[in-house]
Every structure is written in structure tokens, then in C-alpha cells.
């Protein structure tokens, strides 16, 4: 268990008292530019002093009796500016990352492969492109076999293809290694994270699962164009003819392109990200369209957002869903609280965590 | 007794080596005499030269010298007072000769200048009267001529006599009051006037044998210097020690 309380003297009003994180899993850190994300990570790594307490891996990192040295925290830290050792080559940078103890979190060969660093090994780091630098910084942080990985926008200059591949790899790693990931991409966080910390004005504002956080109408985050809900689906059988995967969400069937589900075996759970704007509401079931997946749902909330749009909160058996439609549509469909209705979604517009691997060849 | 222990390291295993501290101005002559002495007595001689002031400072602080050939008499006397040198070894071994050198240049034609012409030079180079005996002599001369105050602004002081000579030799300063030894060494044979002895206090160069050194050998060298050594002095611009009354007389010259 990792837990910390982070105190910002200036605006301590409505911050979170304490944050608790499991010793595995990917936790996102989200917030505006200048919200204090970098500051938080630097404090957790022990690089700056700030009021608060940190307990991690059964030890006190910061408490009344002082602070654990940076060197002893055994974190893997990727700063926002990469900060590669400028006098060395890529290989030289990686060579300085000597593994802590005999934990083996990553395998070097695999890491170099995923991060596509093999061809760069002999290059001086001063001659790398922005995205190349970030990948080297990530590899260096991982090669120490850290107990905790602190990533400060590690992929902001990496193109989307690599970014997804690496995101997926991090997701896999997070089964064994807790990861804190700062990112400005809600989509990335939604697809990868189990848990998100929301920061604002130097404070921790909220913690929760992406589905929770991104659909809480009291947080501005749900008003965004890229707001989405997360649904957990059960893997069912695979249809080899159409190359599709059958799923079950709260007892209702769903069929998606098989390559969106590659990583998960039958019987397991797959998180699905449904963009609010992608959901189509219909009074009846639809025929003769390319829309294939519809859920029978109940309206449990209607919120206006931007001027002519509404957010509709929908309830499946267990899970909740957010849809964004125009006011005009809402009016014509006569949507009221408690209404039964159909929520359709295009199979190809679903985003799964597996999605990040279903990519054109690297 | 503050007698220094200096020299222990250098004297062991090289008992036939004599280290002589010699004032810069006397070094060329000392070299000749030392060569002769070391051949005759199978002794190795090392000459450590610096200004008399530096050498005295060093001896005061334990320098491993056996013999000190100073260019003045005050510093050897001080060493004796401090108990660092044998009082009976303090002897005048040579006397310096002050000359007025005015090489040709500008409108000046050259030739042997006259004493009166001292006041005609644009600038005059002397050794620092405070630290160098030749400077002291030059000062006494100028005072005697009533020029000391009036020429202040035209005086240039070398740290030692040698620097004062270089000021003139390099053409930077018109004329100088300098040791004859330096002029001879520099190959200057004309254009200077040997200042009459009575116009400045005697430039007694005195030697002392340093305690805790190889006193025996040092005295032997001193003997040589006062004997055969005297013969080469004249041709190098020094009056022999004997030419000026008795050595005893000059013990009190300081």
C-alpha cells in the first residue's frame, strides 16, 4: 500500500486529505497546465521538500522524523524534460541505470524492443529527436527495476503509434509495478488507468476511477468534448468467420472487431471506453444500418452542458453510461428521467485498452 | 639558542659539497673563483644566488647554506648578531665601484661624462637605496652633490643593481649610477666615469660562515677568496678587499 497526504499551504481548502494507492496498477495524474503535477511527482521522488507525509512499501518516506533519501526510495523517475546525461550515448545513459536489488521488473531486450531503441544505442543523446529522448528517459527509469514508476508526461513528444504501443506496455507492467502517469490526454488516461488523481491549483482535488471521475457532472472534466464513460465487459466467444469478439455488458451482448480485444482471454474482463459524443440514443431498436451494438438502458439524469447540448446519464443493470446529444435531439426524443431507451454505439468507435496494440506495423 | 637545524638533509652523504649563498652582483666572479677552488680541493660547489636581502632572509629562517657572500656589510652583521653566523668569519672580501654611465643617445654624444653632468640627464637609473648597497651609495653621492631632492622625479629605481643596469642598457633610461662590475660584464668600456671613492661610503662586500654548516670547508673557501681570489677582482670591476685599509676597520662600517 502506498499512501500520502500532500499539503499545499496556500490553497488547502478543498483538497484531498489522503491518497491511497495499491502496490500495482496505473494511476493517472490529470490537471491543467500549472496545476502542480510536476511538483507532486518531484515531491514523491524526494527531490523537493514540501509539507506532507508519505508511506510506501511498508516504510515511511516522509514523516515527522524526516525524509528518506532520494537514492533509497528506489523510484523510476522520468522528468518532464527527459534530462538525459548529455555527455553520453543512449547506451551510456542506459548503462548508468544499475538495477536496485535483485527485483527484475523488466527485461532489457524486451524494453529496447518496445521502445524501439535498438537502432539508437550508439547515438550521442544530444543528437536525438524529442520523441527519441523521451523513450530513452523511460527506458533508463525502468532499467533500475524501480519499486514505483513516476512518469511526468513521458510520451508528449512521441507520435501516436509509438505512444499507444508504449502505453499498452506500461499497462502490462503495472500489474507488477505501481505507476503514476502524468498526461494531458484524457483518452490515454481513460484507456490505461485504473485510477486517476485530479489536480488543480497545486492541490489534489479528487481521486477515482476514470469512469467515475469523467462522468461526475460536478467536475468540469465531464463537460469536455472528449468526455467518456468506461464500461466493463465480459469476454465471450470469438467469431473466426467475421473476426469479431462477442462480449457481455451487464447481461447485454456486444460484438466488436476481434483486434480490439487481443490481450484478454475469454472469461476475463475488458474495459471499454465509450466517448459520450459517440453514443446514439434511439426510442426503438435500429435495423438496416451499420450500427450493430445497442443497449437497453434507463435515463437517470439529464444535465445541460455547452449551450445547445445535454449530457444524459444512463443506467444499465449495474453500470452507468454518459451520452452527449444536442438539445434539439433531446427535445424531439422527449427524453425524461426514468425513460427506457436504447443506447447505440458504433463498434469501431469503441476504445479498449487493447486498442493500443491494434495498430499498423511498427 | 635559535640556531636552525637547516641543512641536515643536504649535508649528509655529500660532505664534499659546499653551498655558497652569493649576492647576484658578485655571482660571475664567485663562479670563477669557485671553479678554481673546487678543482684544487676536489670539492663540489653549489652557488645559490639571489639578492643579498633574500639570502639573508633565508638564512634567518634556516637555509642550508655554508657560506654567505653578501653585497653589503649590514646583513652579515645582522646574522652574526642573531647568532646564526660566526662573528670571527665576518670579513670584507671585495669592494664595489660606483660609476656614472651615460651612453650616447639623442643629442648626447657620449664619451666620459663629468660629475657635473649628473644634473643634465633626463632620467637617472639607480638601484633601490633601501635594499641595495649600490643604491645606498648612489643616494649618498647625489646627496653630496645636492641633487638628491631636486632629482627625485627623475630617478628610476631598479630592485637590484642589475635591473638598474638593464634600464639603461635597454635604452629606456638615459643614464645610471651603477656598479662597474655590471658594465664590464655587459661589455661596456666607454662612456662612464668612475666615481671617486671619497664621494660615497665604502661599498664593503662582506662574507660570513654560517653556523651548523660545513664551517671548515667554508673557511677554507673564504681563505681562498681572500688570497688568490683577490687577483681577479679588479678585472671584474671590484676593488680588492686589502686595497682599503684593514678588514677589521670595516667591521664597524654598518
Amino acid at each position, binding site marked *: 500500500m502506498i499512501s500520502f497526504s500532500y499539503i499545499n499551504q496556500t490553497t488547502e481548502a478543498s483538497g484531498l486529505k489522503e491518497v491511497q494507492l495499491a502496490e500495482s496498477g496505473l494511476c493517472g495524474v490529470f490537471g491543467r497546465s500549472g496545476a502542480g503535477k510536476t511538483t507532486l511527482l518531484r515531491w514523491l521522488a524526494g527531490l523537493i521538500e514540501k509539507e506532507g507525509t508519505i508511506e510506501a512499501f511498508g516504510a515511511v518516506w516522509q514523516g515527522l522524523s524526516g525524509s528518506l533519501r532520494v537514492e533509497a526510495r528506489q523510484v523510476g523517475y522520468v522528468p518532464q524534460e527527459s534530462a538525459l546525461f548529455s555527455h553520453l550515448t543512449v547506451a551510456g545513459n542506459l548503462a548508468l541505470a544499475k538495477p*536496485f536489488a535483485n527485483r527484475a521488473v523488466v527485461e532489457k531486450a524486451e524494453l529496447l524492443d518496445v521502445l524501439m531503441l535498438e537502432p539508437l544505442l550508439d547515438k550521442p543523446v544530444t543528437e536525438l529527436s524529442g520523441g527519441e529522448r523521451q523513450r530513452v528517459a523511460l527506458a533508463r527509469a525502468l532499467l533500475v527495476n524501480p519499486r514505483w514508476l513516476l512518469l511526468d508526461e513521458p510520451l508528449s513528444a512521441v507520435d501516436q503509434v509509438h505512444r499507444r504501443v508504449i502505453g499498452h506496455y506500461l499497462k502490462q507492467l503495472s500489474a507488477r509495478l505501481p505507476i503514476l502517469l502524468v498526461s494531458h490526454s484524457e483518452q490515454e488516461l481513460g484507456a490505461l488507468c485504473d485510477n486517476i488523481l485530479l489536480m488543480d491549483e497545486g492541490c489534489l482535488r479528487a481521486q477515482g476511477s476514470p469512469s467515475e471521475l469523467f462522468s461526475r457532472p460536478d467536475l468540469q472534466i465531464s463537460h469536455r468534448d472528449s468526455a467518456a464513460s468506461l464500461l466493463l465487459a465480459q469476454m465471450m466467444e470469438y467469431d473466426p468467420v467475421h473476426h469479431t469478439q462477442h462480449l457481455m455488458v451487464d447481461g447485454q451482448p456486444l460484438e466488436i472487431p476481434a483486434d480490439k480485444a487481443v490481450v484478454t482471454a475469454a472469461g476475463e474482463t475488458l474495459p471499454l471506453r465509450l466517448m459520450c459524443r459517440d453514443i446514439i440514443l434511439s426510442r426503438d431498436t435500429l435495423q438496416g444500418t451499420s450500427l450493430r451494438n445497442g443497449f437497453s438502458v434507463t435515463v437517470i439524469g439529464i444535465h445541460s452542458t455547452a449551450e445547445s447540448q445535454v449530457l444524459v446519464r444512463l443506467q444499465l443493470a449495474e453500470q452507468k453510461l454518459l451520452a452527449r446529444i444536442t438539445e434539439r435531439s433531446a427535445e424531439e426524443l422527449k427524453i425524461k428521467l426514468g425513460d427506457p431507451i436504447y443506447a447505440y454505439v458504433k463498434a469501431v468507435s469503441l476504445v479498449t485498452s487493447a486498442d493500443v496494440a491494434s495498430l499498423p506495423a511498427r | 639558542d635559535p640556531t636552525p637545524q637547516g641543512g641536515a638533509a643536504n649535508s649528509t652523504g655529500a660532505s664534499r659539497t659546499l653551498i655558497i649563498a652569493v649576492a647576484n652582483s658578485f655571482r660571475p666572479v664567485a663562479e670563477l673563483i669557485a671553479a678554481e677552488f673546487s678543482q684544487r680541493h676536489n670539492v663540489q660547489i653549489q652557488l645559490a644566488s639571489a639578492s643579498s636581502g633574500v639570502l639573508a632572509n633565508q638564512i634567518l629562517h634556516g637555509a642550508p647554506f655554508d657560506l654567505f657572500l653578501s653585497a653589503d656589510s649590514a646583513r652579515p652583521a645582522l646574522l652574526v648578531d642573531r647568532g646564526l653566523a660566526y662573528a670571527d668569519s665576518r670579513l670584507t672580501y671585495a669592494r664595489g665601484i660606483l660609476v656614472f654611465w651615460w651612453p650616447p643617445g639623442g643629442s648626447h654624444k657620449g664619451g666620459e661624462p663629468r660629475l657635473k653632468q649628473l644634473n643634465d640627464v633626463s632620467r637617472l637609473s639607480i638601484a633601490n637605496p633601501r635594499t641595495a648597497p649600490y643604491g645606498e651609495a648612489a643616494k649618498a653621492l647625489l646627496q653630496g652633490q645636492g641633487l638628491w631632492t631636486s632629482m627625485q622625479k627623475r630617478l628610476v629605481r631598479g630592485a637590484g643593481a642589475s635591473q638598474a643596469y638593464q634600464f639603461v642598457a635597454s635604452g629606456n633610461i638615459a643614464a645610471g649610477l651603477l656598479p662597474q662590475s655590471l658594465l664590464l660584464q655587459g661589455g661596456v668600456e666607454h662612456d662612464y666615469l668612475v666615481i671617486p671613492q671619497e664621494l660615497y661610503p665604502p661599498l664593503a662586500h662582506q662574507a660570513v660562515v654560517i653556523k651548523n654548516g660545513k664551517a671548515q670547508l667554508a673557511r677554507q673557501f673564504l681563505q681562498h677568496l681572500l688570497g688568490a681570489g683577490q687577483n681577479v677582482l679588479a678585472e671584474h670591476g671590484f676593488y680588492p678587499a686589502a686595497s682599503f685599509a684593514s678588514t677589521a676597520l670595516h667591521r664597524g662600517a654598518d
Partner: protein
Amino acid sequence: MDFGFSAQDIAALWLTVKLSAVTTLLLLVLCPPLAWWLAHTRRWHRPLIEAIVALPLILPPTVLGFYLLVAFAPQGPVGSYWQALFGTPLAFSFSALVIGSMLYSLPFIVQPLQAAYQAIDQRQLEVARTLGMSPLRRFFKIILPQTKRATGAAGVLGFSHTVGEFGVVLMIGGNIPGATQVLSIVLFDHVEALDYAAAHRLAGGLLLFSLLALSLTYSWLRAGNKAPR
């Protein structure tokens, strides 16, 4: 080897090289910790220490030499201790020359190192800490390689300064041929004795040789240090 140099010249040359090399090496070992401390401490007395480091410069070398002579004398504060420890007098020994030269060249090594250390990218050192690198490892793997050129250049200046040093060495060394008579003193003696031919020969040879050695050193320092993009 004979370019008209006397045995005395050769002995002095050898002594000079030895003295300068030992002095520079010792300074390059001792100064980095001091420079590092000066570069990073936030203590109020830092400027005082910086001033003390620069202080030997204020005194003319001969005068500095004089005070060292006083200190190194067998009855002096340092000399007596030294004698008790090693059984030999300090003044007029090679060790005395080394200590004097070190003191005299210290600021020229400390100050460039300090400036170089201050220019190091702190973020790289922070990352190094998160990688678990010990201070010593950080020094040898990051700080030293990144300040190679500055260290080299400081070493060259220190070496040259010691070669040309004269006042201190003359005062505490005593111009004893083979023991403490370095090249600068021999050269000075030639000039003092109006032996210009010997002076020109020695000065010319020294300058030519130094020009060559310095050029090569600077080339080497330059090759090892590419400017970052």
C-alpha cells in the same frame, strides 16, 4: 640532447616539470571537493571561504614566499610540526616548493572548477539520484566527464603558472642547483647576470616547447569535448 643547454639547465628543467606536475596533480585531486562545496553550499560563510582561497594572490609572490619561509622554518608553526612528523626540515625541500606552489596556484584551479560545477544541469543530477547513484558515482560518472574540459583547462593554467612561478619558489627553495633550482630561477639568473644569449636560448626553448605542449593539450581537450547541440 644538446641545444646549447647546460647540465644545470637540464637539471632545472627536470625539476620544474616534476614540481609543476606534482603540484597540478595534487591540486586536481584536492580542489574538486572544495570547488564542489563552494558551488553548492548555501552557507553564509561561502563568500568568506571564496575570498580566503583568492587571498594568496594579493601578496607579491616573494612576500608570500617570505611568510611561508617563516612558517616552514624549523621553529615555524608548520616547519616544526613537519620536522616532528618526518624528521627532516621542510623549508628548502622539494615538499616545501610543492606546498608553496599549490597555495599560489590554488585559486586558478578552484575558481574555474567552481564555475563549471555551477553550470552543470541540476536536473541530470537529480535523475542520477533517483537512479540510486552514490555521490562518488555521480561525481565520476557525470560531473567529472561533463567538466572534463574545464578541469583540463584549469590544470593547464595551474601547470603553466607553476612553471613560471618564481618568487615563492626562490624564497622557500633557495635556488639550490639540483634540489630547488627550477627553470624560472635559472632564467632569472641569466638575465640578472646579463647573460642575454643564455637567457634568449632558454626562454626561446621554453616558449617553443610550451607552445607545442599547450597546443597539443588544448587540441586533446577540444577533441574530447563536443559542444552539445
